[in-house]
C-alpha cells in the first residue's frame, strides 16, 4: 500500500503540499502567539466590528414569532393539551387532585405491572429488576418524586415518538426534506440541554408543563434518525413484493415498511426514552418537580446521603427503562403450536390481570401495599452520610492535596494559557489541523465554526469551556485508553467491561456529579472530574470494540511472522482499531461538552455559567447563541474525526 503510494509521483505531490500548507499555517499560529505583545488588538481578541449582535436578531425573530405571528397561541394551546394529559397521569400515579380522581394507583400494582412487563420481554432477571426498582423507590420513600418524574416521561415519550416517526417518514419520502433535516438534526443533537430550555420558558413558562414540552422537543431527533435509517434499510424485495400484492402507498407504509423497520424504530424508542429521562431530570432547572429537583436541592445543600439515594433511584430507573426497551427492540416473533389455547397464547396478559387483582385486593387490606409515607420509609441517608463523612475525613488529605495541586499547578495555568492565546492564533492553529486532516475544505469548516464563535462575542468564555473539555478529554484518554487495552485482552473480561460501560452510559449525566461533589465539594476540580468520568466511558468502550473488531486473520498472520504480544498490539491491533477508537474520542468530546455545561451550576466561569444566567433572565437570543457556540465546537470535532477516520479506513481497506 505505502509502496504503491510512494512509487506514484502524482499521488505523492498533493500529499506533500498538504502537509506543507498545514505546517505553514501552524507557523503562522506560533508566530502570532510569540508576537502577541506587539500585535494589534484586533488580532488578539475579536474586534468590535467582528462581533455581530446575533442574540438581538434571534430575540427580534422570537418576538416576531411570538407576538406578530401569534405562535404563542399555538404553543399555549398545545401546552394546555399536554398539561391536561399530565394531570391525568399525575392523578393516576401519585394521586394529584385532578380528573379522573381515581389515583393514586397502589404502588404494589405498579410494581407488579413493571415486573410482568420485564418478564414478558426477557424473563426473570428483567422482571426482578423492574419490580425491584419500584420496591426500592417505595422503601426509600421517594414514591411521589419518582412518580412526578415518570408521569412526565409517560406523556412526553409518546409525543416524541409520534413526531419523530412523522418527520422521519417525511424525510424518507422526500429527498429535499431529508437534505434540510440533516444539518438541523446535526445541530440539534449537539446543542446542550439548556439551549432547549430557554425558548420553552419564553413560550410556555416554567413548571411541569414546560418540563414536559422541553423533554418532547429534546428527544425527537434520535427518533427521526432511527426512523429514517430503518425505513432505508428495508430490503427492496420486500417493498417490491408489497407492490406486487397491490398495496397502495399508505398500505405499503403501514403494513410493509414500518413493521419491517421495526427493530430500528424501536431502537429509536429506546433512545427517546433515555433522552426523556435525562432531560426530565435536568428540567428541574425550569421548575420541573420530581427526582431531578430533589437531587439538585440536595446536592446544593451538600446532603450526600440522600443525594446518593436519589441517584440510585435515577440509575435504577434508567437501567430498567433501557433494558426493557432494548429487550423489546430485539424481540423476534415466535409462533405458538397449533391448537394452543387462548390462555396460553395470552399468558402474560392473564398473569398480569391476576397479579394486579391480587395486588389491589391486598392493598385494601394492608395499607402498606397501597401507599407508603415518607415517615414510614427506610431511608438510609443517615448511615450513608456517616460512612461518607468517615470516608471523606479519611481521604481528606489526599483530596485536599489533589485539589490544591490540580488548581494551582494545572487548571489555573492551563486556563491562563488558553486565555493568553490571541484568537487569530487559535483560528490559524485550527486551520492547520483542518488542512492536515482534510485539506482546504476541512480548514474552512474549522475556521467557519470557530469564526462564528468569535463573532458571537463570547470568546473568553468559550476558551474556558475549551480548556475544561480538552483537559478532561486528555485525562480521559490517559485513563480510558489503557483501560480499554486492558479490557480487550480477554474475551470474558471484554464482555464484562463492555456491559459496565453500557450501563454507565445509560445514567443521566446529572448522576456523575454526585460522587465528585462528595469528594471535592463545589469547584472547578469537581467539574473537571465529573466531565472526565463521563468522557472516559465511551473511550473505554470504543477502544475495546475497536481492538476486538480486528479481523482474526490479521492477528494470526502477525503471530505466524513471530510477533510478540506487544508487537501485535502496537503494530497490528491498534492501527487497525484506531478509526473505531476515534469514534470514541468524538463521543467523548461531545459528552464532555454536554457535561461541562450541565456542571455549570456547581460553579464554572465558562459558556455554561452564562447559559444559566440566560436561563434565569429568559434571554432566548443569548441562550441560543451560547448553545450554538457549544454545538459548533462539537460539530467541528465531529467533522475532523469523521474525515480522519474515513480516510484512515480507506487506507486500511476497511471501508
Amino acid at each position: 500500500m505505502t509502496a504503491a503510494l510512494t512509487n506514484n509521483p502524482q499521488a505523492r505531490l498533493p500529499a506533500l503540499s498538504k502537509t506543507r500548507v498545514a505546517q505553514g499555517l501552524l507557523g503562522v499560529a506560533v508566530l502570532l502567539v510569540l508576537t502577541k505583545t506587539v500585535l494589534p488588538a484586533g488580532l488578539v481578541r475579536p474586534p468590535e466590528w467582528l462581533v455581530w449582535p446575533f442574540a438581538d436578531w434571534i430575540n427580534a425573530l422570537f418576538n416576531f414569532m411570538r407576538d406578530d405571528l401569534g405562535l404563542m397561541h399555538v404553543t399555549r394551546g398545545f401546552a394546555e393539551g399536554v398539561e391536561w394529559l399530565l394531570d391525568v397521569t399525575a392523578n393516576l400515579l401519585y394521586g394529584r387532585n385532578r380528573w379522573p380522581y381515581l389515583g393514586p394507583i397502589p404502588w404494589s400494582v405498579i410494581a407488579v405491572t413493571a415486573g410482568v412487563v420485564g418478564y414478558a420481554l426477557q424473563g426473570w432477571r428483567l422482571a426482578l429488576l423492574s419490580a425491584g426498582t419500584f420496591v426500592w423507590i417505595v422503601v426509600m420513600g421517594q414514591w411521589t418524586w419518582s412518580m412526578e418524574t415518570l408521569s412526565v416521561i409517560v406523556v412526553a415519550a409518546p409525543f416524541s415518538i409520534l413526531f419523530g416517526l412523522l418527520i422521519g417518514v417525511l424525510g424518507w419520502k422526500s429527498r429535499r426534506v431529508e437534505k434540510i433535516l440533516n444539518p438541523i438534526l446535526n445541530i440539534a443533537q449537539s446543542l446542550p440541554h439548556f439551549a432547549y430550555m430557554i425558548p420553552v420558558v419564553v413560550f410556555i413558562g416554567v413548571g411541569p408543563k414546560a418540563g414536559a414540552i422541553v423533554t418532547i422537543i429534546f428527544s425527537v431527533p434520535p427518533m427521526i434518525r432511527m426512523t429514517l435509517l430503518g425505513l432505508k434499510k428495508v430490503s427492496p424485495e420486500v417493498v417490491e413484493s408489497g407492490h406486487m400484492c397491490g398495496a397502495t402507498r399508505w398500505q405499503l407504509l403501514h403494513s410493509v415498511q414500518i413493521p419491517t423497520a421495526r427493530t430500528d424504530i424501536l431502537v429509536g424508542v429506546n433512545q427517546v426514552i433515555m433522552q426523556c429521562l435525562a432531560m426530565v431530570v435536568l428540567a428541574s432547572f425550569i421548575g420541573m418537580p420530581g427526582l431531578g429537583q430533589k437531587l439538585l436541592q440536595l446536592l446544593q445543600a451538600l446532603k450526600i446521603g440522600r443525594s446518593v439515594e436519589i441517584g440510585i433511584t435515577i440509575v435504577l430507573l434508567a437501567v430498567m427503562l433501557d433494558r426493557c426497551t432494548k429487550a423489546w427492540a430485539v424481540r423476534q416473533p415466535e409462533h405458538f403450536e397449533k391448537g394452543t389455547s387462548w390462555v396460553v397464547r395470552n399468558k402474560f396478559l392473564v398473569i398480569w390481570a391476576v397479579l394486579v387483582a391480587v395486588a389491589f385486593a391486598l392493598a385494601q387490606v394492608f395499607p402498606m401495599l397501597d401507599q407508603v409515607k415518607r415517615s414510614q420509609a427506610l431511608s438510609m441517608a443517615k448511615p450513608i452520610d456517616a460512612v461518607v463523612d468517615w470516608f471523606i475525613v479519611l481521604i481528606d488529605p489526599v483530596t485536599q492535596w489533589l485539589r490544591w495541586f490540580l488548581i494551582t499547578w494545572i487548571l489555573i495555568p492551563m486556563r491562563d494559557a488558553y486565555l493568553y492565546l490571541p484568537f487569530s492564533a487559535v483560528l490559524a492553529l485550527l486551520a492547520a489541523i483542518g488542512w492536515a486532516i482534510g485539506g482546504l475544505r476541512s480548514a474552512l469548516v474549522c475556521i467557519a465554526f470557530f469564526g462564528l464563535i468569535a463573532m458571537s462575542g463570547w470568546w473568553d468564555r468559550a476558551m474556558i469551556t475549551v480548556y475544561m473539555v480538552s483537559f478532561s478529554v486528555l485525562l480521559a484518554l490517559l485513563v480510558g485508553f489503557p483501560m480499554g487495552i486492558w479490557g480487550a485482552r480477554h474475551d470474558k473480561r471484554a464482555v464484562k467491561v463492555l456491559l459496565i460501560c453500557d450501563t454507565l452510559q445509560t445514567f443521566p449525566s446529572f448522576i456523575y456529579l454526585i460522587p465528585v461533589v462528595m469528594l471535592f465539594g463545589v469547584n472547578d476540580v469537581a467539574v473537571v472530574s465529573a466531565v472526565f468520568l463521563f468522557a472516559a466511558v465511551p473511550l473505554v468502550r470504543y477502544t475495546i470494540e475497536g481492538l476486538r473488531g480486528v479481523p482474526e486473520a490479521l492477528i494470526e498472520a502477525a503471530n505466524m511472522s513471530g510477533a510478540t504480544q506487544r508487537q501485535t498490539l502496537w503494530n497490528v491491533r491498534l492501527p487497525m482499531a484506531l478509526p473505531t477508537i476515534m469514534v470514541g474520542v468524538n463521543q467523548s468530546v461531545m459528552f464532555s461538552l454536554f457535561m461541562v455545561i450541565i456542571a455549570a451550576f456547581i460553579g464554572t466561569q465558562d459558556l455554561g455559567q452564562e447559559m444559566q444566567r440566560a436561563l434565569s433572565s429568559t434571554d432566548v437570543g443569548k441562550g441560543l447563541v451560547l448553545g450554538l457556540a457549544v454545538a459548533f465546537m462539537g460539530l467541528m470535532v465531529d467533522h475532523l474525526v469523521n474525515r480522519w477516520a474515513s480516510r484512515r479506513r480507506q487506507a486500511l481497506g476497511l471501508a
Partner: protein
Amino acid sequence: MTTPETVISCNNVWKLFGEKAENYLAGMTGNPTFDEIRQAGYIAAVRDVSVDINRGEMLVIMGLSGSGKSTFVRCLSRLLDITGGTVKVEGQDIGALDEKELIDLRRNKMGMVFQSFGLLPHRNVLDNVAFPLEMRGQDRHTRRARALEVIELVGLGGREEYFPRELSGGQQQRVGIARSLAIEPDIWFLDEPFSALDPLIRREMQDEFLRLQEMLGKTIVFITHDFDEALRLADRIAIMKDGAVEQCDTPDKIVLEPATEYVRKFTEEINKARVVHARGLARPINGIAPSGEPIAGHTTIQEMGRLLVNDTRDLMPVSDKNGKVIGAMARQEALDVLFGAPA
C-alpha cells in the same frame, strides 16, 4: 388452428441504470455494445428486447448471473420503469397506467415470486399468504380460507403460524409461491422460484406447476439457472447475455439451430437427445406417405433410442397429441442426434 393470443408484448425494451438514462438513450446512435454503454457510465441491464408471450405459454429465461433476467421481469411488471420501448399487457401499455390502474392490474392479474422471497418478517405464514387478499380488502374469514387452501397446496399445511425466520429457505420460498398463487393471477412471474428447494420437492413443485398450467392455462415467465428444469417446463426458452436476448425459441430449436455462437456454447454441454423431440425433427410430408406405426411427437430422441436402433425405416411418421400424422422424421438424422454426427 387459432392464432395464439398475445398476452405480454415487449417492443425494443431498454433498461439502463444511471443518472438521466433517458437522455443518454435518446441521444444514442447505432447499436452500442454492453461495454460501450458501460464506458458512458450506464449499466445496460436490458438491451433492446422484443418478445411476445402468448396466453398459456411458459417462457423460461436463462442466462448467466447479471445478464439482466430479474431486471427484465421487473420491467414486465413495472416494478421498474423502463428507459425505452413499450411493454403491453393484454394490449394495454403498462407504462401509461396511472397508480390506481397499476394497483388494479397487480391485484387481479399478476403474481410474482421473488428470488430472495421478499416475505414480511413480522407476519406469520398465514398472514403473509393472505397479504395480497388483505390488500384487496377481502374480509378476514374468506382470506383465511383461501390462504389455508394455497398453503396446503404448497405443502406447508400445519405450519401456518410459523414466522419466516422460523422456516428453512425452501419453506420460505414455498410461502412466496403460495402468496403469489393466492389471488389466482393470470400472469405469473417467477424469479428462480425453486432454487432454494431440495431436488425431491423441486421435482414435485415442477409437476405441480405443469399441472396448474395445464389446468388453469396461466401465462408464466420463469427464470432459472437449471437447464433440466427449463427443459421440463419451457414452451420457449429465451437466452440472455449482457441484457440482450440472444435467442428465444423452442428448446429443440435452441439446441439444434443455435442462433449465435454464444447460444451454441451455452448449450454445448447438453445431451441433445434428451432435449430434441420427434416433432422437432419432423419435416412436412411431400406426397410420400411413410409406412408403419407413427411416433408420438412429444417423445424425446433419447426415449426412442432403442426403437431407432432396431427400426429399419428411413423415414418415420410423427404424430401429434391426437394421433394425427404431422410429418416424417429421417431416422439417420435422429441417430445423429443420439450418437453425435459423424465427423
